[in-house]
């Protein structure tokens, strides 16, 4: 009897793992295909995709495609652009939005509720709907630069950074987190004679590790994966981020090997980053869900 039961249990366990693994294959095989293809010449790549060889590093394996990709487009420049824009935006966004969250959650001032609901309302406006007017606006904004006052923000880093520093979701995450912190802590610091600025950066920020991680991860993903906006505002090579740079690979002949190399190049670091910090990534997505 007990033998039978344990057999039954084992079978069910096996079926469960089988289902899980089959589904995992659907998600993982296209990615394996991408990386493997990046190592093969375009000709062999197309032939191989007829068999399981598509997922194996067999045949004429080399990093040739990567060299070719670097020759075809200034890949290094694009990566640096993306990293620069993303990095600056994430850092300044964390600073500004945490300050805004601090002001709304902790400080007392008139009209706070209105401002908060206005901020929340912006979450319901999809970016796509404001992209076109924002483009016109950006083309006319003034900027004090090296050569004095100039107009027009197109083709610059600032047009990719400034519009995304303040965002409703990040502010909201900070407001929520700060509200849940014990008030006693803040009051104790105030009694000791600390200024609000001291409270912010000596008391609150050291306690905000989790929410900073969440906000940073969400912002990083959103910024690094930007496509529509840079496509519209950046026509000059010098400021182009990685995804817009993909256009280089569709001139004249489509060399799939090179494209796969480029895709792997810009994806694998993010994937590795994700796999290392996997728990934090998933927790940050989950925390946006709980709010609803």
């Amino acid at each position: 009897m007990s033998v039978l039961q344990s057999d039954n249990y084992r079978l069910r366990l096996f079926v469960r793992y089988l289902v899980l693994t089959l589904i995992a294959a659907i998600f993982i095989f296209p990615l394996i295909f991408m990386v493997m293809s990046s190592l093969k010449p375009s000709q062999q790549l197309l032939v191989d995709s007829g068999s399981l060889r598509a997922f194996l590093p067999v045949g004429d394996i080399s990093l040739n495609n990567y060299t070719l990709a670097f020759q075809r487009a200034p890949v290094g420049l694009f990566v640096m652009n993306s990293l620069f824009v993303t990095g600056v935006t994430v850092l300044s966004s964390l600073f500004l939005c945490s300050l805004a969250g601090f002001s709304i959650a902790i400080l007392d001032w008139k009209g706070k509720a209105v401002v908060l609901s206005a901020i929340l309302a912006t979450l319901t406006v999809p970016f796509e709907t404001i992209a076109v007017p924002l483009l016109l606006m950006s083309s006319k904004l003034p900027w004090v630069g090296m050569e004095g006052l100039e107009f027009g923000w197109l083709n610059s880093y600032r047009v990719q950074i400034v519009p995304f520093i303040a965002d409703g979701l990040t502010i909201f995450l900070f407001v929520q987190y700060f509200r849940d912190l014990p008030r006693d802590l803040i009051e104790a610091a105030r009694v000791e004679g600390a200024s609000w600025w001291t409270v912010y950066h000596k008391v609150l920020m050291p306690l905000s590790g989790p929410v900073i991680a969440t906000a940073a991860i969400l912002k990083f993903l959103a910024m690094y994966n930007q496509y529509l906006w840079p496509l519209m505002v950046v026509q000059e090579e010098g400021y182009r981020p990685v995804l817009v740079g993909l256009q280089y690979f569709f001139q004249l002949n489509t060399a799939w090997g090179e494209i796969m190399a480029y895709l792997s190049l810009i994806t694998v670091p993010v994937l590795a980053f994700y796999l290392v910090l996997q728990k934090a990534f998933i927790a940050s997505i989950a925390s946006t869900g709980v709010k609803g």
Partner: protein
Amino acid sequence: MLVFIILPFFFAIWFSLTNQRLISPNPTKFIGLSNYTQLLSVGTIVLEPERDASGAVLRDKDGEIEYPRLRTFTRNNPDHPKIDGMREWFSWQTGPNDEFKRVILAKDVVFMRALKNTFVFVIVVAPLQAGLALMLALLINQRLRGINVYRAIYFMPVVISIVVVAFLWRLIYDGNNGLLNNLLGAISFGAIEPIDWLGQTSTALGAIIGMSIWQAVGFHMVIWLSGLQTISPTLYEAAELEGSSKLQTFRYVTWPGLRNTAVLILIVITMQAFGLFAQVDVMTNGGPLDSTQTIVFQAIERGYGKQDISGGSAISVILFVIVLSISLIQRYLTRERI
């Protein structure tokens, strides 16, 4: 914040009422609602078949009924002022013996197709993606060794840009040597002919839907999971003591506990689905024959590609009104249950 979200939003409404262009020698003029009438005007006409002298219906070589040319009605025809300048959107046979042809016309046929495609996309993707994500979440919510590895894998496509995913799937969907065609061929031992997934009107939108779900389903799985974990384990223990079946447990314990999550997920997916752009831009450019045109693609193509800021803004405002009304409807429908 104010400058970059709220201001452009009001600009959008203002521009949509003018003839603003990105670079134009003429000053901007206020033109009222004509952008909207241009986009949204639809009309209809019934075409009577051509008859010969005896009154019999004329047919062409293939036996198709012959109709007068539509142009004779829509080009400066004083008898039909309402449909002036319109083009055929779609038509069907009507009347006795199906001899008549009812034609639906629109001033802007491409935009109408974009509207339709976007709605199809949303209506298919929202329930399908939410349902699949829930199934995955239930699978992952088991207590098994190594389950975190599976969770990590299911979530993986989410961290990859949709643009990268779209390029990758372009190769997978390829009509000749695509991975998908080869796989189908291998499974069916060559019975299924290779299909040019992105190259024909009947499959292009479906292909984009499939790929979009593949990329985003992990995201919503995680949100479902966080909902599942808020359900108290004592409820499950109680259900087990009562001897309820798995299905009953899901119906009476799990599902009621997930209501808030369900509302959130549906709203989020709907919003994202209305923003469909990158996949189309990378994979099909709206084609073939406008079968994958979407609202945002149209807004960008006009506002940016053709530098017609006012036209693009008008489309943006229409999109916003649609999204707003749908989220209000969703909120209203789910109001009492929360």
